[in-house]
């Protein structure tokens, strides 16, 4: 925290003052590929905080480095400049405390394991005694509306169901933060809305910190406490907005709220400009 306090951070405080502690702090994070002479800059000087219990949405055009930021946050990638701290300590590599939900759910699930087996992988990783796996897994499957699917293999499920399995597996690792990389991008509109609402409910119940990547403006506004707009070449934050819409949100009323429309209008203009 001391490093964060020493520097002025242009990040508005989150909705609730009680959750104002930063879970993740990014300070001047940059990423470049290649040698220093002809290095290709992917990300440039990204500085922001992710606060405990908030849903932060990153939205931007394809190729702006959204996914790269998420991989940096998970520890799968290391920045070439700047620093990323998680709960005050610099990130050295991936950790179970930061779960990542990949967009390509079909590649991220183990095809030879059943739904229950896939969720149990996280429990095995946490070395939870096997006799308590059944109970934990069925509770998680119930939470994700997957009760009937425990014995099925991923290939037997629809895309929405597979993504639910991946989220259940991430929850089973008991993360402190959920990193989601366009998790609903490959799903149809109906399924996407259902999963959005399930995510909001889940986040509210568990006071989960979520970083959510999307290219869908409306999804970002609907889900987020804050929305960051990214510009490309190199990827950087060009705008931050605080979403002042009340919770719980609803697909019908929230999306018709004048504030929702105003945010959408503004962000749409920003993204068009780039």
């Amino acid at each position: 925290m001391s490093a964060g306090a020493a520097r002025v951070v242009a990040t508005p405080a989150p909705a609730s003052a009680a959750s104002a502690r930063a879970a993740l702090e990014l300070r001047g994070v940059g990423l470049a590929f290649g040698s220093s002479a002809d290095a290709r800059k992917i990300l440039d000087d990204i500085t922001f905080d992710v606060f405990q219990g908030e849903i932060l949405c990153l939205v931007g055009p394809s190729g702006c480095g959204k996914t790269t930021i998420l991989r940096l946050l998970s520890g799968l990638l290391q920045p070439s400049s700047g620093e990323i701290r998680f709960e005050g300590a610099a990130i050295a590599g991936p950790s179970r405390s930061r779960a990542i939900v990949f967009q390509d759910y079909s590649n991220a699930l183990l095809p030879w394991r059943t739904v229950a087996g896939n969720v149990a992988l996280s429990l095995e990783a946490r070395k939870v005694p096997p006799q308590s796996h059944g109970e934990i897994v069925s509770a998680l499957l119930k939470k994700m509306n997957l009760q009937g699917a425990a014995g099925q293999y991923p290939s037997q499920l629809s895309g929405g169901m597979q993504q639910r399995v991946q989220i259940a597996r991430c929850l089973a690792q008991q993360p402190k933060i959920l990193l989601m990389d366009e998790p609903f991008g490959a799903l149809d509109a109906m399924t996407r809305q259902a999963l959005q609402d399930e995510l909001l409910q889940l986040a509210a119940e568990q006071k989960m910190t979520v970083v959510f990547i999307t290219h869908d403006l409306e999804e970002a506004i609907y889900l987020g406490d804050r929305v960051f707009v990214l510009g490309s070449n190199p990827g950087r934050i060009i705008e931050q907005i605080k979403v002042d819409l009340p919770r719980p949100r609803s697909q019908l009323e929230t999306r018709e709220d004048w504030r929702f429309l105003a945010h959408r209008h503004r962000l749409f203009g920003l993204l068009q400009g780039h």
Partner: protein
Amino acid sequence: MQRFVRGAMLPVLIVLLWEVSSRTGLLQFESLSRPSDILAAGLGGLADGSTLLATWQTFEAALFGLLLAILVGILAGTILGLSATTERIVGPTIEAFRPIPAVAFIPLSLLLFGFGLPMEGMIVTYACVWPILLGTIHAVRGIEPRLNEVARVLELSFAARMWKIILPAALARINVGIRVAVGFALVVAVTVEIIVNPRGLGYSLILAQQSLRVDLMYAQLLWLSFVGYAINAALRNVKVSQPALLVGARP
């Protein structure tokens, strides 16, 4: 059943023609026995146990060689598949050894082990290890990178990553290599027996020929084809129950 009858028509007809023409004197070759004589010789071999003993000896050597090849192939293949550096160092040596025909090692193996099971088993291993090794290298290298990322985020230990992710993910393609190797195992075992090793079906075959027991030679040949067919049929059944064999599969 109907398919079986249709498929059996041609062989039955040939055997009948063969029997009739050799009895009527139409066919007179020293290298051709009558089907009835062949049947008698075959039944005789089965009755006195000599055929079954020879079958077991061949089978034993093929199985020993194959199992060793599976062990070595999967182990070395996994290491080479995971580590690009190791592959760069060992790869050229492997490529230099691979084109040498397995039977070319018969003299060396004979010097090292003498006649018997180990000598034959080593030749079988040499022949069988290549498809399994290469299959495993490609299987391990072709694993979905996402699964490795899942393993990293879950902080799985190396052993857990091997056992829960890499081996099950690679198993389907490793299986293909094993299947090819099974085909090699019997062929190479019989070949070694025919050329040099005084045991097993290959040796009985060459012994029957050399002692001018042409009927017995044919009977052995038929028996060999039956054994090969039975092994293939058994393997087809293994494929059906494969999901149950998958490592790390949990309910």
